[in-house]
């Protein structure tokens, strides 16, 4: 026969096991240099949440088991379980910043990742989850055995009594919330009477109370991580990091793709596909708002903000390189033409510039008067303005300078 004591010890061992595992696992995680927050890795987050959920289930089951086992033991036992559970929570949280950190310094650690996590970290977390599942199965088995025993002990009279009591039987929901049967309400009545409103003195739902404690704990850990231990990035740092990692990705991508058009390498595109793409961008994108849909500089019958693009007069130079530069970095300061390099890719800007060049000589019926200097393709290409030249090394220089 399974004694209560037996269950008690067994549970303690199991919980202690989990606790020890976490305790010993910590130094392993802590060994590496600090890395960025583990909460960036979705797999890690899911695993941590899973671990926490299972722990909650363990806590509830343990509570039910103990509650069902013996009322005498209840007071003492309840406390221990809760304490142990809380302790594990605590450790989980304090351990979490370290999850994503490097386990080994042997150099080839980058290769051993699972879903972006260190494989060892993954396995440790998986083991914890596995052990938690074992604990849950153990608890469930114990509850079953216990309930069976209790049933066997019952005399016929007691069975009758149970039948009567069934009307006020507690469901898992009631237990979860520590609800008392409505039939026992009179015991809880405080005797208050406000305009006919009575008040009961039900206990606080345990999950609510421990949830409250948990949020307080969360608050402490949060403030600690951001403002004391600095293991979580403040806004400014987070920004710098995200820009850096994005830059790396972009550079890698461009290298792979071999597309590196800039104002020094750009050539006039004459392909119909390219010109159509340019036209699409021009008429349906932002250009038409200032230069008109036909490039005449007339917007809805009014002279627009931008100049006529169909004549031979250019404010910022009319060569393909100049037009490319103007679109990419913008025109004269405060004159309206803004920089489009963050909106359009280099390829798109080349298409746009080529399309704009193709507009020359289309002679729309209504157009804005000429502005700027005469530029003819035959004349020698004007050198690109100095200010633009200094900006040439596209993305890298630009973002480096950003504060």
């Amino acid at each position, binding site marked *: 026969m399974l004694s209560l004591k037996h269950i008690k010890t067994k549970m303690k061992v199991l919980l202690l096991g989990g606790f020890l595992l976490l305790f010993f696992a910590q130094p392993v995680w802590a060994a590496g240099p600090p890395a960025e927050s583990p909460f960036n890795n979705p797999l890690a987050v899911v695993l941590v949440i899973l671990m926490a959920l299972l722990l909650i289930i363990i806590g509830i089951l343990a509570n039910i088991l103990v509650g069902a086992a013996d009322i005498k033991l209840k007071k003492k036992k309840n406390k221990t379980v809760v304490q142990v559970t809380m302790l594990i929570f605590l450790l989980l949280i304090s351990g979490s910043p370290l999850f994503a950190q490097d386990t080994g310094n042997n150099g080839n650690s980058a290769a051993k990742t699972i879903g972006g996590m260190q494989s060892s970290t993954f396995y440790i977390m998986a083991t914890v989850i596995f052990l938690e599942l074992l604990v849950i199965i153990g608890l469930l088995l114990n509850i079953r055995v216990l309930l069976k025993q209790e049933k066997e002990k019952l005399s016929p009279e007691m069975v009758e009594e149970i039948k009567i009591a069934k009307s006020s039987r507690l469901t898992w929901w009631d237990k979860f*919330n520590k*609800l008392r049967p409505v039939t026992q*309400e009179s015991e809880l009545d405080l005797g*208050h009477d*406000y*305009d*006919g*409103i*009575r*008040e*009961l*003195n*039900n*206990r*606080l*739902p345990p999950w*609510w109370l421990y*949830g*409250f404690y948990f*949020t*307080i704990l*969360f*608050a402490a850990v*949060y*403030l600690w991580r*951001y*403002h004391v231990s600095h293991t979580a990035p*403040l*806004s*400014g740092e*987070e*920004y*710098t990091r*995200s*820009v850096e990692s*994005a830059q790396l990705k*972009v550079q890698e*991508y*461009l290298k792979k*793709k071999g*597309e590196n058009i800039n104002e020094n390498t750009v050539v006039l595109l004459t392909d119909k596909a390219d010109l159509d793409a340019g036209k699409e961008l021009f008429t349906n*994108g932002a250009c038409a*708002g200032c230069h008109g849909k036909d490039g005449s500089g007339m*917007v*809805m019958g*009014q002279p627009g*903000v931008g100049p006529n693009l169909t004549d031979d007069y250019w404010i910022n130079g009319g060569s393909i390189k100049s037009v490319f530069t103007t679109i990419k970095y913008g025109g004269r300061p*405060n*004159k*309206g033409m*803004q*920089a489009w*390099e*963050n*909106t359009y*890719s280099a390829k798109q800007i080349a298409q746009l510039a080529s399309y704009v060049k193709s507009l020359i000589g289309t002679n729309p019926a209504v157009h804005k008067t000429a502005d700027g200097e005469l530029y003819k393709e035959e004349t020698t290409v004007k050198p690109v303005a100095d200010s633009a030249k200094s900006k040439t090394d596209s993305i890298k220089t*630009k973002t480096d*300078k*950003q*504060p």
Partner: protein
Amino acid sequence: MQVEKFYYDNKIVKAFGYATIVFGVVGMLVGLWVAIQIYYPAISLNWAPTTFGRLRPLHTNAIIFAFVGNASFAGIYYSLQRLCKTRMWSDRLSWVHFWGWQLIIVAAAITLPLGLSNGAEYAELIWPIDIAIALVWVIFGINMFATIIVRRERHLYVAIWFYIATWVTVALLHIVRSIELPYSATGSYSWFAGVQDALVQWWYGHNAVAFFLTTPVLGLMYYFLPKAANRPVYSYRLSIIHFWALIFIYIWAGPHHLLYTSLPDWAQSLGTVFSIMLIAPSWGGMLNGLFTLRGAWDKVREDPVLKFMVVAITCYGMSTFEGPLLSLKSINAISHFTDWTIGHVHIGGLGWNGFLAFAILYYMIPKMWGTNLYSKKMATNHFWLGTIGIILYAVPMYWAGFEQSLMWKAFTPEGQLKFQFLETVTNIKPFYILRSIGGALYLVGAFIMVYNLYKTIRQGKFISNEAAEAPPLVKETSPKKEYWHRILERKPVTMLVVSLVLVAIGGIIEIIPTFLVKSNVPTIASVKPYTPLELQGRDIYVREGCYTCHSQMVRPFRDEVARYAPNPGDGGYSKAGEFVYDHPFQWGSKRTGPDLAREGGRQTDKWHYMHMYDPRLVSPGSLMPRYIWLLDNKLDTSTTPAKIRAMRTLGVPYPSGYDKIANRDLMTQAQIIADNLKKEKIETAPNAEIVAVIAYLQRLGRDIKEEVKNQPITENK
């Protein structure tokens, strides 16, 4: 013991109840109107008083202060008398409160469309109205406390705790937020500037939700739910814990409206953690409500009052869980400035506040007219229409917010922003249309209620003075030993003081250091006060409610810097020191239009001119209304000296005596802009309002660009 006879005053409850219905319908109508304007700008009628920027404040103020406010007062006047077993202390004060409050609402309904605004969300009302609010609030407080003092019930019921906390906290919030310096009979500048103004604003704004839309309504729930269900309150113990925890923690959570802004990080973190800690206290109220219905769920199936209450309480639980989640930085990075927030507040507004207000109206009106509800079926239909309305409102807003945010943040693999701002707006137009359908359904439900209540009133007979009796309170010769909280419940004044102390703590700890600790707002040398013309333009910006759609805060995100400050000389994301002369701050809370923090120099004067004339001329598909009157209105320069003097008093370093020559500078700058426009073939008078607006818009972000030019660029640490 001799039983005393007395009469409850139902007339005042009736008055507040009628006001609730009238202003509720009006507020919702205005809401529907602005919801349609968002996707169909022409419905603004191209008339200044009916544009989005002026009507949106009218909608929020009408719903918060007129609809929910009047509903709370109706419920408080009804329940307080019955819980204290006495008539209101003074009928005269009750009526002064009623008429005072309605006059304030009418004044708001006139001034807001006229563009008279303080430019702070939910605190838009101008200073004379602010004073009137404070006075009426004090009158309400005196009447309430005197009633509590002369009560015939020894202990205060939990509903009254909530009423007391509401009164004292709203008084505190309103007074601090309204510290402003008038420069004319209708205009004033906030005493605070920039980051500090933002902190005060959201300390106020967040707690307007907490103490005007939550605590009084929780109090109503504690009275009307047990009454309607005829069930005892689930847990007295829970009431105590969640009440005190709620009022203490709520006040701290304001900075979660300012995550990733220039507010110091420590204050942001406090906002986050206190929001998380707020989950349990908020849910305590929900649990106490829902568990009170144990053993009465069969009644919920029949009784529309309980139906409304169940959904109201559930919505309360949902939005108080969602709120803390939105306070987590990772989620806030997605949700903030989008329609997600709009969806969130409407779960609270339509679900919690609206449905609870409907519930108490359906409960009180048949009772006070000594009859039954005219049609339960109609009320049930109202319930279902309202519920479907809420879902149709909220789901599209969540979707729109999420989708737009992802579009804002999307980059091509080449490192360019994938979408232009306008694309992200036009893309969510279908959701805006769906949302207005949801709102319309909700409004139709409200109309059904009006009819139902009208019929109920017609079939009953109003009991203006309801007879009641109770023994008087006599001083106990030997008070028996009681639970500590029971002792507190005998002492309303102690309760008031303890509540005040508890709510003051959070505010003091968060607000004071940003004033005293210099490092919290590092100064930027090149940030200079606005020129007189820019200042006038800024006041027009505030008048038109531009902040209801445009933010002025580039957050430290890759996409925002790429979109709003793309060039190395643009100064990157927004810094605290940029806003030191902004009385009031204009960071905004919603980006229906793009951010304007770095607008200066991005477009030409001509572009702005054409854009104000018709936004769709220069950005096809834009949803912005036209601002034609800015082109014709003449700028009132007579206010310039007073404005400069006020700014000087607030610490803006204009030279002494500058107020006398300010208008000369103003005209010089205006002439430059007018000449500039003339070159582009646009004839405009230099004293047209548009010139001032252009001057202001061209100034935005200029100072920080200067700063970058002046200083060698150093690696940001």
